[in-house]
């Protein structure tokens, strides 16, 4: 045997490389996933150029390029987002490359964003007011549109304008101007202008309500619902978790019982979230909620007020789900407070409570905050328990509004995670909804990863800081 062969197998270097491969694969998987989400999510906002294709059969197609591949039969083809759902019934279309004679990007192509039926790609035809033609020809209409749309935004009344748009093959479509949200000529925009449109698109998605069965428009209610729920959960879980941890670490006699309790609490963190959902449904919604209804809202029965899922019950369920995280982190924080601090405090004549309040808790604060942040991150990403306790695909009203008592804890709410599930898997037109799902995923991941990073960095700093003490 040659020496390198023996070295190769005998020394086990090969296996070390194998271990390395395991890590590389894991890293590639996570990296690939993040890149996939970032590309798809951020790509959604970019006003891509409109392409006009001339096909061999003489037909024209206008749309945005959405991908290229080799079909299972070995023919290269491209995927176009052709829009005009009301005319074609489809959002996407495959076109074999050998069918295409010419690809052009005429500057007069427009993308009309409508309240219903999705985008329209084509050319501007005429602009009517009642029966009279106000402007005719692509450019003339384009010139006259901006002030009208701006005016429409500020006024409530119906303007009476109708826009006629023409698709690639000359088919006309009339749209009432009130249905039009925006008209863009992407091919006519410079990169800087596109960037501006991009920022505008991001803003729109983050701040507006969804349209078209959640597949278009914004995701503001879902963001708001998620944040709201996490805040209520935090308000509940903080005192509960901290008091329990204080008891376990500072007041309880350390023995078998406390150790058992600690293991039990620890294990609760590993109980599936759906079980918490089941508990929340049975205990909070039907148990507590049903009792509240029977006592104070009996006049509305059998329509339940609190006896059905709502943001309060969802938050409480998630609080229960995350309380072990907070207890464990707080305990760790309390344990990390050097013994000398307490001895010093007691030695100076402080009572136990004063020691805890003035010395121990402030020192342990980073640990507690870390626990809270990790709990919030977990809560923001959980979906399964919410599906049982109050999340809906489309909430008619926000949990906070201008009517008394302003904060409506009994209302159902929308949630980013559930939005992903609902839009991606329950909507009738999954293909058209996919970009929206990627955007929602991106927002959710940004929220969760930011929270987690903060938590992890804080924890690592704290561990370093107290590395010399009793940790």
């Amino acid at each position, binding site marked *: 045997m040659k020496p390198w062969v023996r070295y190769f197998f005998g020394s086990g270097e090969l296996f070390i490389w194998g271990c390395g491969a395991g890590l590389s694969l894991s890293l590639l998987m996570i990296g690939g996933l993040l890149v996939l989400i970032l590309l798809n999510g951020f790509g959604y906002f970019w006003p891509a150029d409109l392409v006009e294709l001339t096909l061999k059969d003489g037909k024209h197609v206008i749309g945005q390029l959405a991908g290229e591949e080799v079909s299972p039969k070995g023919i290269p083809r491209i995927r176009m987002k052709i829009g005009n759902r009301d005319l074609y019934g489809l959002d996407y279309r495959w076109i074999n490359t050998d069918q295409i004679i010419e690809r052009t990007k005429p500057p007069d192509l427009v993308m009309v964003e409508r309240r219903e039926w999705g985008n329209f790609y084509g050319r501007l035809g005429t602009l009517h007011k009642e029966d009279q033609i106000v402007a005719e020809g692509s450019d003339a209409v384009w010139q006259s549109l901006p002030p009208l749309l701006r005016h429409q935004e500020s006024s409530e009344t119906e303007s009476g304008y109708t826009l006629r748009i023409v698709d690639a093959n000359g088919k006309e479509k009339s749209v009432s101007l009130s249905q039009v949200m925006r008209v863009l000529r992407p091919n006519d925009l410079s990169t800087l202008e596109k960037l501006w449109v991009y920022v505008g698109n991001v803003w729109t998605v983050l701040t507006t309500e969804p349209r078209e069965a959640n597949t278009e428009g914004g995701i503001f209610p879902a963001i708001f619902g998620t944040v709201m729920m996490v805040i209520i959960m935090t308000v509940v879980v903080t005192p509960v978790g901290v008091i329990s941890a204080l008891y376990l670490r500072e007041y309880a006699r350390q023995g078998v019982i406390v150790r058992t309790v600690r293991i039990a609490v620890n294990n609760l963190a590993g109980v599936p979230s*759906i079980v918490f959902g089941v508990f929340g449904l049975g205990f909070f919604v*039907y148990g507590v909620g049903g009792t509240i209804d029977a006592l104070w809202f009996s006049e509305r029965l059998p329509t339940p007020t609190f006896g059905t899922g709502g943001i309060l019950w969802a938050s409480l369920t998630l609080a229960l789900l995350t309380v072990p995280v907070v207890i464990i982190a707080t305990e760790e924080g309390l344990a990390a407070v050097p013994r000398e601090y307490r001895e010093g405090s007691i030695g100076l004549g402080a009572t136990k409570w004063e020691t805890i309040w003035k010395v121990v808790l402030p020192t342990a604060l980073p640990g507690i905050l870390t626990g809270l942040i990790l709990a919030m991150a977990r809560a923001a990403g959980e979906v399964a328990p919410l599906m049982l306790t109050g999340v809906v695909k489309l909430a008619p009203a926000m949990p906070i509004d201008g009517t008394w008592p302003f904060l409506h804890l009994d209302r159902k709410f929308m949630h980013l995670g559930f939005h992903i599930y609902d839009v991606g*898997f329950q909507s009738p037109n999954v293909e058209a909804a996919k970009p929206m799902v990627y955007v929602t995923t991106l927002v959710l*991941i940004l929220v969760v990863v930011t929270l*987690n990073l903060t938590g992890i960095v804080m924890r690592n700093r704290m561990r370093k800081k107290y590395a010399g003490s009793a940790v």
Partner: protein
Amino acid sequence: MNVPPFAPTSALQEEPPSGRGSFPASAIVGGLLSRRQIRSITDRVTRFIIKTGGIGIILCILGMCIFLVKEVIPLFQQAQVTSTEPISLSAPESSSSAALIGIDEQQELAYVLRGGSLGFVFLAGAIPATPEIPLRQLVADGSMTAVARALGKGHNLAMGTVDGRVILMAIEFTHEFKGTDRSISPSVTVGAPIMAAPTPQPISKMAYQSTESDVRIAALLQDQHLWLTTSRTTSRPDGTAAASITQIDLTPTIPGRITAFTLASRAEILAVGTAEGNLYHMDLQEPASPVLVETTRASEQGKAITALAYLMGDRSLVVGNASGQISVWTPVREHPGTNMTHMALIHRFADHRSAVTNITISQRDKGFITSDEGGEIRLHHSTSDQTLLTLTPQHGPLRNTYFSPKADGLVSLTEGNRLIHYHIANPYPEITWATLFSPVWYEGYDQPKLVWQSSSGSDDFEPKFSLTPLIFGTIKGTVYAVLLAVPLAVLAAIYTAMFMHPNLRAKIKPTIEIMAALPTVVLGFLAGLWFAPILERNFPAITAMVLVLPLAIAVSAGFFLILPASLRHRIRPGVEALLLIPIIVAVVWGCLEANAWWESFLFDGHYKPWLESHLGLNYDQRNAIVVGVAMGFAIIPIIYSISEEALSNVPKNLIAGSLALGATRWQTLAHLVLISASPGIFSALMIGLGRAVGETMIVLMATGNTPIMDWSLFNGFRTLSANIAVEIPEAPHGGTLYRTLFLAGLLLFMATFALNTAAELIRQRLRSKYSQF
């Protein structure tokens, strides 16, 4: 780690009372309490609050399990029965035993048809001050010889007389509300008599059913002839209706003495039992020409069949015989693939002590009541194979029995003319441990099966609650996830802990921790909508990757090793993983490019037909591979973190000693580190298992959620957790489905709790072992 608790030494108490000077006056609050006292009280109050609060909160958290158990227990409770004081009725003059009783849905008003008259009796707890309803004599006492009841809406009765007439009547109960007052009143419609046979003869036994168009009466006359009468109403084109009556004598087709017969509720089938124990099935779709479909030997040792009834849904037939045996028969296909059926015995129940005289079915579920000669009645549930209740006669033998429309009560008439009303609390008759976990023979199935099917479009559908397919699905998903995750995660952990460059390690560890925090809904979405189609298109490429990737890694490792030492030493040790990344990317890309070639090489051109013909497997787009990868992805970080912790906690002096004695890196790892850390890695595996068992969103989104039992990689499954998420929002509060789903939740809870506890105990032992070094 464990700081000894702080001894509650209170500095306050030991403070010398004659301190240095007194407290400043400003510290006196209200002139009553000194500042010291306030501090002491605050301390005690907070101690109390934290202690009670802490204990309370922890008890609440742990009380979750108790709550789940509490919700599940009612499923397994025995049926409860409470009887009310018997009501004595006047005895009829005639000695005929023919009688029928019934009760309204609210169980307030009972009716009794006997001796040719129809009377009403208010039961205990009925609305006060309800006027008495006079007895209505329909035929002369003594001339009523047989009675029958039709199933369906309302109470449709038939009375057969000594001169061969059949009188049909319908009773309806109307509830009226006047403010808070309520009243109940019956209305009785009596139809024109129909002759049961061409010649007038006393009717000794009768069966009756009515449908929208037909009225069907089967009557056994004194001369042992069974006549079938069909009165069919057909609507003419001009809107008027015409009735046509067809009568036929069925006796010639049935050998033997007829002892029992019953009509199915849709009146298309007549089942006839004979004294020899044979069961004859007649198809009555054509009124003029009934067809004998099947003859079954339905009674052991040729005992006479004494009672017959179709269960709700008209599929299964309950047979009672002269020796008290009760069995349920249902049509079963002779061979898979044919439509030919034969009656098969699917359930047997405990024998009565004497001949079965009557069978009354529930209009709610597959339950039924049997009564025997000795006056005892029993309540059974067909599907769950259990006898729920036995009511022994206390006030004389129980003769006529009626199961209330909601199946929550029954009335019975004793031989001594007393009416007894029983309330039955039996909300979950279909659930037993056996129906939840072992195969059950449902109607319409060829053999006992494990089925989960909680709802369906049809009306007479019977929900099937077997948790076994769901437990199977849970295990299947977990196994595939663990198969992918454990090798990857443990290898990665070994590499990070033992061989990786420390600078790199400080960056890699948080990255993988972040991966742990990725919401599973995101993984589920990508698995279902992104990965599943890609896998479907490139399945051959993926199989190629599994083969090529290890080879490529080995080759590149070898290549690096045979590099000249001067070059090799330029590469810092502990960055092998980074060097491998471009290689892996290249292999993956290459395999994807070679997909078509590989498909024609390995799978004869198309892999789906190949799988079908060579392995008999069907390829679903959302299958176990997709879930395995996505769920594996979800549990890699947790297994990685815990294993890494266990590996890097192996005392450094041991490793240094091993290396110093000349062992290679690998030998140190294999013979020292892995062995000492193996309990930690094992506990990581268990925590990973716990995660996978309860994972909901990934399974929900990345499988078809079909509750089938099959280990195939290429089809989906349904797990306990996904099942809860799918079904509980639609489950009525407190119903069977709701509680069964709670049981599923409890199972998940217990499984993960056990796994986590075991893992935690192992870790604690490991920790104390290492602390010796």
